[in-house]
């Protein structure tokens, strides 16, 4: 016993050292420790099992140490090609999120405004009866489900099959709409097919990395460490192109700041320079690309009746060249704040035929009222130079959530989507109905509500029942005051499945305690098309039940049990086997379970026992039907170079509200903090949210670090502590607030404008005023 405890202490001490080393690496990129390589963990008495990390979209492989029915240790999986044995501070502490003191263990039902404990059977009976009653009285489209990019693949699949295939409503959305819908529409409009063509191995080959509004040092720290490692080994360059100075800027070789929204103009100016200097890869463009333009002045989605449909028109290279005359670097400098020489510098990096370039981006270009356009414009640069679909040449859209790709995008948990194809296509509906074993007439042919529209419909009363799983919209929805009031209105019935109490469970009528992560069997899909399997390692606490099983129980009660004939013990695996039928073939074939059980994940398309690391290039992709490049997502095999102009955002600073408000994340906390704020060390590291101010402006306003500051927009007001010259430094005229802290609901201030093509809201730009309290 003594030896066991001693070993445990040695082990924990080494974990603590590892966590500090990882933190230091993110603070001081390139730092080397004398004992860094000696952190070999004691493994006695632990049963190590593999799982993808619970948190971000990087999808690090972890090894979880299990002892006496508890998860007690974590280390990076050295077999995982994603993280090669590394983990970040969230990953190292991830298992502690399972054991928060206020973990939800019993279902709760609201009676006379007070939550009362009940059994899971009774709670699920109530959920099913409320759904039936709502459908009977108000129609199928009065019920909805709002899920997540943190849904495991089987959970999202069951939700889609139940709502679209059985109940017969397209009222299913996921919070991934808030983070990567613009990436999807960017891929679909440029390539006719979703998800990156490259993989993380691009990091090992590229000479230059351009980070577009992407604070990777905090949001994707393990990938950032891999880039820094390459800089030490090969002298690669990192360019941080952003709206504020962050840890990423400090570690980059060059930091270039732009004014919010003007990334559109700078991207066009880079294209202008590439053409002007004859850096266009003419052979590639002539063979593999076509030019198009769409509608302009497309609006911002601010009203409930807003509708938009793009109308693409073919143009030619000469017309595109004329369009770019408006984006001469010297002109763009005037409103972007980016010196013409810096625009030319970036263009020269992309244009140099001897340099391989990766562009990384995430929320900056995606949470943007012209998010689809921004994605198109980054692709334009790579297509003009032919730097795409080959090792080290990659436009790489990163995701934020662990299964935004695997569940939301691939399973298709959106109103317009099916696991393969669109609800609007008869052929796709027939294919889904065949695999699901449901009558094809069940699947409606028209999308209903995207996320913002769904919450607006809840507010108006057209949706009366909403089931929310694995997400916390009462912290994350922009212009939150309106939508919280909507959820609380008489006649709405809200079910929330979660692991901890949150502001969203506060508005629930029924709270269902969920099994979390390794308390169930599941699969996630990460940013590089990698599907990862994990097996159940722990028993969920109390009556907690995994989200998929909750849905299956309700499906049974609604009379749809015959469509869900899976075994209780092994349903996740059986669901995955059913699901993979949708993607069979060379373009999206997924690895079978026996492979995923052995390996630290596998990239799709998985063809003849091998992952396809670079798509659309016949050298690497067996789905290509011609030599060289073949963008087979589009019928003619060509990628689209889009003419997309600069257009102003929905709201800009003025004399009354003179500052831009930008919102985002910090490395220590995962999204709304409902899990990481229960991990004491992460909570202590960043115990509360704050507002970052420009140091000069703070001085002019008489605001010092840690002073209380009131921030007000046209939609709400909040008082929080000032952060001056700490982690991030905004330029003059801008402030930044992290959104992880439910005590400071910054989304009460943000604007519910969105990209009219992707319907993804813009969390990066609205106007506020600042006062010292």
């Amino acid at each position, binding site marked *: 016993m003594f030896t066991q*405890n001693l070993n*445990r*202490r040695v082990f*924990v*001490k080494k*974990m*603590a*050292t590892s*966590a*500090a*080393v990882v*933190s*230091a690496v993110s*603070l*001081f990129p*390139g*730092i*080397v*420790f*004398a*004992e*860094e390589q000696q952190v070999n963990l004691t493994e006695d008495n632990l049963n190590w099992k593999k799982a993808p990390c619970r948190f971000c979209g990087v999808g690090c492989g972890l090894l979880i140490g299990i*002892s006496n029915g*508890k998860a*007690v240790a974590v280390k990076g999986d050295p077999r995982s090609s994603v993280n090669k044995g590394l983990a970040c*501070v969230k990953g*190292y*502490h991830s298992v*502690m999120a399972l054991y928060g003191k206020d973990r939800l263990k019993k279902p709760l039902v609201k009676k006379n405004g007070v939550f009362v404990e009940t059994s899971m059977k009774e709670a699920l009976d109530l959920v099913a009866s409320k759904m039936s009653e709502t459908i009977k009285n108000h129609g199928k489209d009065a019920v909805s489900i709002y899920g997540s990019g943190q849904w495991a693949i089987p959970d999202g699949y069951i939700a889609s099959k139940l709502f679209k295939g059985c109940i017969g409503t397209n009222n299913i959305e996921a919070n991934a709409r808030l983070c990567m819908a613009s990436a999807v529409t960017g891929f679909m409009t440029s390539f006719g097919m979703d998800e990156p063509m490259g993989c993380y191995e691009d990091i090992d080959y590229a000479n230059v990395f351009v980070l577009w509004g992407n604070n990777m040092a905090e949001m994707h720290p393990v990938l950032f460490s891999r880039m820094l490692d390459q800089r030490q080994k090969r002298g690669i360059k990192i360019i941080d192109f952003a709206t504020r100075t962050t840890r990423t800027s400090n570690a980059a070789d060059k930091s270039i700041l732009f004014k919010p929204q003007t990334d559109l103009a700078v991207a066009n100016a880079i294209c202008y320079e590439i053409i002007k200097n004859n850096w266009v890869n003419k052979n590639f463009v002539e063979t593999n690309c076509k030019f198009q333009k769409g509608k302009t002045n497309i609006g911002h989605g601010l009203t409930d009746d807003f509708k938009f449909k793009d109308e693409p028109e073919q143009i030619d290279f000469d017309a595109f060249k004329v369009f770019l005359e408006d984006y001469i670097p010297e002109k763009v400098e005037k409103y972007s704040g980016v010196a013409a020489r810096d625009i030319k510098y970036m263009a020269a990096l992309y244009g140099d035929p001897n340099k391989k370039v990766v562009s990384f981006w995430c929320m900056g270009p995606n949470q943007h009222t012209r998010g689809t356009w921004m994605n198109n414009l980054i692709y334009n640069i790579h297509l003009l130079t032919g730097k795409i679909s080959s090792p080290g040449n990659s436009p790489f859209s990163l995701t934020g959530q662990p299964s935004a790709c695997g569940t939301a995008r691939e399973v298709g948990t959106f109103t317009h989507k099916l696991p393969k194809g669109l609800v609007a296509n008869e052929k796709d509906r027939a294919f889904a109905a065949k695999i699901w074993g449901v009558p094809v007439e069940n699947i409606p042919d028209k999308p209903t509500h995207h996320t913002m529209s769904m919450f607006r419909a809840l507010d108006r009363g057209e949706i009366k029942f909403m089931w929310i799983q694995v997400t916390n919209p009462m912290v994350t929805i922009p212009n939150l005051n309106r939508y919280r009031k909507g959820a609380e209105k008489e006649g709405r019935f809200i079910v929330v499945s979660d692991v901890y109490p949150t502001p969203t469970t506060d508005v629930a009528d029924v709270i269902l305690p969920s099994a979390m992560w390794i308390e169930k069997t599941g699969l996630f899909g990460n940013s590089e098309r990698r599907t990862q399997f994990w097996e159940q390692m722990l028993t969920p606490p109390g009556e907690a039940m995994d989200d998929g099983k909750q849905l299956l129980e309700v499906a049974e009660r609604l009379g749809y049990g015959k469509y869900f004939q899976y075994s209780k013990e092994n349903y996740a695996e059986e669901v995955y086997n059913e699901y993979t039928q949708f993607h069979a073939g060379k373009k999206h074939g997924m690895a079978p379970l026996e492979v995923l059980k052995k390996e630290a994940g596998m990239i799709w398309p998985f063809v003849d026992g091998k992952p396809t690391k670079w798509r659309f290039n016949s050298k690497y992709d067996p789905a290509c039907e011609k030599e060289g490049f073949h963008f087979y997502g589009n019928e003619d095999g060509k990628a689209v170079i889009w003419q997309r102009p600069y257009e102003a955002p929905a709201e800009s600073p003025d004399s009354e509200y003179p500052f831009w408000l930008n919102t985002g994340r910090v490395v220590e906390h995962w999204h709304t903090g409902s899990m990481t704020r229960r991990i*004491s*060390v992460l909570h*202590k*590291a960043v115990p509360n949210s704050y507002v970052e101010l420009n140091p000069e402006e703070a001085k002019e306003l008489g605001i010092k670090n840690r002073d209380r500051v009131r921030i007000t927009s046209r939609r709400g007001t909040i008082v929080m502590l000032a952060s001056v010259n700490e982690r991030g430094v905004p330029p003059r005229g801008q402030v930044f607030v992290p959104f992880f802290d439910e005590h400071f609901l910054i989304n009460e201030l943000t604007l519910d404008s969105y990209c009219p093509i992707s319907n993804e809201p813009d969390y990066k730009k609205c106007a506020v005023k600042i006062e010292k309290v």
Partner: protein
Amino acid sequence: MPIKSYIAYPVDGKRNELIMKIKALDSCELNLAINEEIFIVVTDTFSEDEDKMIYETIVNMPELKHLTLVSGFSDEEISN
């Protein structure tokens, strides 16, 4: 018997003195960066009181500019 890890930031020019002083404390182990001034301190103490005392001792050293807590494990977490 808590275990904690910190990043220590020495005052300019005082790194070696700070390292010597912390090394002299029974409950501390150090991991030194070889290309930056900062280093890692891991404390392994017998009680919450000793943990507090060791923390106070380190933060009051004049050679220390700043001490950031990174990771902490309580008795309960260690014995789990």
